[in-house]
């Protein structure tokens, strides 16, 4: 897996490569859809998925829904078997309920 353009949401990976979406820290409710989803992500239960062998790029949407009115966080990351990690941290903007990002995995 490689991070493109120094942007953690822009990734490229080999066909059939095994990647893992993990929740590293935080107290938000984290869910995901795409690439083996839907599902709920917790610190104890990472989501492992295989990069498809067909297609050009595939999206993985990850959502953090916050429990309070401010101060919610969720640190997540996509890692490969070599230990390379594409990290992303949700910081709750005051007065917001949820936030979502889309990791785009370019299949090479």
């Amino acid at each position: 897996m490689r991070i493109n353009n120094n942007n953690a949401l822009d990734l490229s990976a080999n066909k059939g490569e095994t990647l893992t979406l993990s929740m590293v820290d935080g107290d938000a409710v984290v869910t995901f859809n795409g690439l083996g989803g839907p599902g709920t992500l917790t610190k104890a239960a990472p989501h492992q998925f295989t990069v498809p062998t067909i297609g050009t790029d595939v999206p993985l949407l990850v959502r953090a829904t916050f429990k309070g009115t401010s101060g919610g966080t969720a640190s997540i990351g996509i890692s490969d078997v070599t230990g390379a990690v594409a990290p992303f941290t949700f910081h709750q903007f005051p007065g917001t309920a949820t936030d979502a990002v889309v990791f785009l995995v370019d299949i090479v």
Partner: protein
Amino acid sequence: MKHFNRLPLALAAVLGVSAHLGAQPITDPAKHLASSLDGRIQQIRALKAQARNRALTPDETASATIGLQRDIDRIYLSLIPRVSLKALQELEERRADKQVGDATGTAAGSTSLVSKGGTPAILAIAVENGALTQDISGTTVTFRGTPASLVKAAQNTGYFDTLKTNDTAVAVLQKLSFAVSFDTSRGLADGAQPVLTADRGQLAGASLRVTAIDNKDPRAAVNDGRWNRFSFTQENLDQAALTAFKALSVDPAVVAWLGTAQQAIAAAPDDQVDAVVRTQFQMLANLEISPAARGAVIEAGKEFEGLLKRRADVLDDIAGGGQLLFDVAYQTQLTGPTSANIKVVGSVGRSILLTGNASATLYIGDVPANTDTLRDVQGAVQLDVPFGNPETIGRYVFTLATKVQHMPDDLTAGDGTFFPNTKGTIWLGQAKLTIPIRGSAAKVPLSVTLANRTELIAEKKVFLRAQVGFSYDLDAVLARFKP
């Protein structure tokens, strides 16, 4: 003469428990979008400034400008005119409020209303005017905070990071909070205006609070089951958002808009980022997108509204939980012996909150001869009834409280002065209205208190006093300065 100026600490203990009342869950997508855009504008501006001094991390680069991957919720919500126009209007109003309230122009962002839990995460200041059982009125300034968060804040940790912890010891420490009160009328020449010097001479008391049970805290482990069940209802929204992402990423109008928006942000001076981002999102409301993309956007918007409602239901359920805390206060008097007040505070209720206190005050230090250690026992009940729409006029709270204080013996001052016929029972009744100040974290409590007597005047007549207060939650401000 000034005597026994200690009730503000006791009141602070009661009021602190009811602080959850202000936390109304957001259900309007437009309100969410306004806050979300506000947060992103500040984030983009901060990262743009940092990028001039150092290379951004991959995590930061993802947030450094507007993008479909980073802003999918904000973009599809902004493509729904009824949501985006209301959100942008809200954002404009917040900017107007900020200009009125921030005369120095030093604030890093608007000060939207943000409510905290029972104990402020970092620091709160409460300034209370008036008196209940004191013989004269005074002004007490109370500082309250949690040691764990203050230490982290002092280490120059961002506000959001102060609340993050994997350390069990730190998590336990966060259940502790402290308060220090200063009587600003002490140490002044006759006729001088009260001024806070926060020196030892003005120290009116200090307290330590331990939260034993806080089931009203949405982050408490006891509520994990509710959130787990909630997470299984997210599939439709996540699927709809993903479908919207796929449709918008190939829509020519959206692709063109994105290119223009990113160029405009890159070219904007720091002080123009706010206006540029708002202008770009304003354009989305009238953007002509394909029917397929329009359909996906409408569906995602509908599911998003559903998420807000389901989340509000969970929070409403959690709000019915109980709270129990213990408070130990050290109180210094101008003329009386120092004392310690040990209090148990419990509360139950959902939107209407019932809080009860039981406490005992003991003389400590130099107790005059023949004086019993037990100074008084107290019981208090408070009913908080919130009303008003937090998204329009604000969240007001009407409070009714009653308190009984029994003193088994006549009072004696530290210098041996005896106050005859002061033993007996005091009852107090209080009606209070807490008024939020729109666009800020400040609240103004107005109250009227009736009492059958004061501590030092035991004659049978009814006393009526009015109090005006002011409280400010600095957490909301710190979150803005150091996101």
